[in-house]
């Protein structure tokens, strides 16, 4: 009986996917899952059990999509069949949709292992039915307070999710005290982190979160800060300190938007990683994916070769060629992420030509007060032209004025496509246009570029 229901659920989900693609030309990344779950409420648990090598869940505020894509690529290189929710549809419905897409009408799954990114607030809803083999906890930053609520509440949900893990392993970021406070409570925890003293910044950024010891409530003291509140920390009262990472990045060399290199140190051996993913935040993404891949039996060579070939995609450092100009799109959706993007685009030291596109839809966070927690002061005196776009472009203009930017370098054009065109016109020969959009602004820009055949639609990626 349950098998019949499962097959009916898969059939209904697949049919809805075909209909959606037929009538709406959309990606059908969540609706098939909703339809399938309506037919069989247990479908996530049932389909998950049909993956012979189980599932990996990846969560965290920033870097979920890139980490999941990296891990999928390493596992595919190692010969595994991967089922993944590639388009960032990271609620339970999106994961069911991915499984339904990989399901046959006889109730089988074509694939060995699931690699799913999961919305940080929805984690327990997925761990409970799916019982993942690996759980990857990336980072916790202040993000969308109107939707997620306080950052401590998200950490509490993760604690609840660990209880569903029977026998699984937790891979977590040692450098993030909020994440470590969760990860260290699990008996099978594998921390990763950056071991590179010279990289440290002098002080915590304004937007830093989670600076208080979970046990004592006193501020952690830091001997090194890598980004936001990530670094080497210790509680002066109870002595709780950053766990020593099992997998670490050493000798990190960053080359602005062009990527970077580092030595990946695993318990038994090390390998040189050459990456075209920009910024320190992507070093963390590679570390998270590598630690998970190694835990699943992939080799260091698989990891290194995959990362070297990997190209940023879907707005996360994605390079697009438009009329002979190089355009780099860097998704920026919260203070910690935006600060890293700003560091990346100013690293080269050349005057910046950029587009900043701020929307306030639900997926962006309707509350845009976070713009004032971003260190836009970094851009003062470093911009030749900035075009502000999106629904909240006027507010962004005020933000840049108070950050001390020269008003003559700033233009406001709420329409995304027109703003992009203005940005391209401001380029001198050989310059790169940096586009920094919030989530739905990124989707809007990519959709416009897809219509012109310049990028592939997100669901085809």
């Amino acid at each position, binding site marked *: 009986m349950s098998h019949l229901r499962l097959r009916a659920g898969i059939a209904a989900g697949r049919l809805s996917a075909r209909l959606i693609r037929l009538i709406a030309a959309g990606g059908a990344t969540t609706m098939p899952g909703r339809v399938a779950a309506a037919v069989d409420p247990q479908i996530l648990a049932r389909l998950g059990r049909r993956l012979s090598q189980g599932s990996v869940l990846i969560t965290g505020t920033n870097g979920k999509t890139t980490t999941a894509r990296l891990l999928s690529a390493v596992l595919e290189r190692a010969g595994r069949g991967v089922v993944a929710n590639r388009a960032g549809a990271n609620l339970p419905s999106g994961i069911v949709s991915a499984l339904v897409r990989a399901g046959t009408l006889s109730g089988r799954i074509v694939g060995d292992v699931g690699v799913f990114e999961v919305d940080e607030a929805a984690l327990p809803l997925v761990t409970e039915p799916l019982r993942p083999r690996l759980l990857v906890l990336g980072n916790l930053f202040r993000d969308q307070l109107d939707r997620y609520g306080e950052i401590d509440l998200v950490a509490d949900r993760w604690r609840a999710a660990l209880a569903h893990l029977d026998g699984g392993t937790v891979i977590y970021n040692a450098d993030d005290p909020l994440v470590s406070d969760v990860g260290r409570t699990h008996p099978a925890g594998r921390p990763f982190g950056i071991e590179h003293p010279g990289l440290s910044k002098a002080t915590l950024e304004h937007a830093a979160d989670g600076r208080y010891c979970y046990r004592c409530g006193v501020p952690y003291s830091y001997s090194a800060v890598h980004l936001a509140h990530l670094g080497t920390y210790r509680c002066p009262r109870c002595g709780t300190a950053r766990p020593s990472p099992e997998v670490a990045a050493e000798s990190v060399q960053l080359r602005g938007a062009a990527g970077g290199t580092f030595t990946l140190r695993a318990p038994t051996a090390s390998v040189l990683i050459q990456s075209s993913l920009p910024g320190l935040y992507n070093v963390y993404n590679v570390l998270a994916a590598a630690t998970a891949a190694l835990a699943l039996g992939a080799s260091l060579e698989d990891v290194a070769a995959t990362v070297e070939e990997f190209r940023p995609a879907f707005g996360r450092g994605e390079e697009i060629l438009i009329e002979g100009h190089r355009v780099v799109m860097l998704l920026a959706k919260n203070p910690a992420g935006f600060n890293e993007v700003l560091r990346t685009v100013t690293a080269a030291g050349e005057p910046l030509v950029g587009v900043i596109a701020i929307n306030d839809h639900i997926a962006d966070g309707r509350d*845009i007060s976070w713009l004032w927690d971003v260190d836009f002061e970094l851009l003062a005196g470093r911009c030749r032209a900035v075009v502000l776009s999106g629904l909240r472009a006027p507010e962004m203009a005020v933000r840049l004025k108070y950050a001390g930017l020269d008003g003559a370098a700033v233009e406001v054009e709420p329409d995304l496509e027109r703003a992009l065109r203005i940005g391209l016109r401001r380029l001198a020969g050989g310059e790169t246009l940096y586009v920094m959009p919030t989530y739905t602004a990124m989707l809007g820009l990519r959709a416009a570029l897809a219509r012109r055949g310049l990028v592939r639609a997100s669901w085809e990626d």
Partner: protein
Amino acid sequence: MAGRTTMRLRVCHLYPDLLNLYGDRGNIMTLTRRAAWRGIAVEVTEVGLGEALRPEAHDLFFIGGGEDRQQVLAAADLRAGTGGALRDAVEDGAVLLAVCGGYQLMGHAYLPAEGEPLRGIGLLDLETRHPGKGRRRLIGNLIIRCSGEIGGRCGGEIGGRCGGETLVGFENHGGRTTLGPSARPLGRVERGGGNNGEDRTEGAVYRHAYGTYLHGPLLPKNPWLADHLIAAALRRTHGEVTLAPLDDRLERAAHEAALRRFGR
């Protein structure tokens, strides 16, 4: 007139490490930039947990909002002495802006859905009660119209066109605040929840102390209020003050864009 003698704006930012949830530092940036653009010398003093507050050392106090854990720490510190100094300063004519969690702490008490009440400092005559876990938080864009005394006076003071008498911002709070007889509301809700989602009041005013749920942050896109606070703070030590008008086209555009997008 600014520039004739150098005036000094003495700002105190309370608990900047603890209560900084919603871009609150944008309020400080707005106060300091708008004073500096007029040739007014600005000093910003940060006062954190366990540090003594001297009521006569500052003319404009700011306190923002934080998460529950941080708010409990701030409440204890306020009760230990800082709150008394803050009350003295306000009685002496100093200006206070308290936003969201900081606003709640200025009242008599915060009564959570479960657990012990959190005592405030009673600077503003109000009480905040959480209606229970099942009740929705008041989250969303908030537009209020200020009473004539606040909004109206500003137009004369800064001499130029100001953003009008509306304030725009964002609110995100579970607690419902009820005003007592000696607190006046800051304004009347045109869109959003305000103090409690029922009586259409928003915020509270007592002397030159202003409490509100409006973040976003509040001052950058409501420059008339920023100037109102600056002028009131300067008056405490410099007597009658007229602020030179600034080019507020961008600020007004942001204000009006929010009105258009979220107003009725």
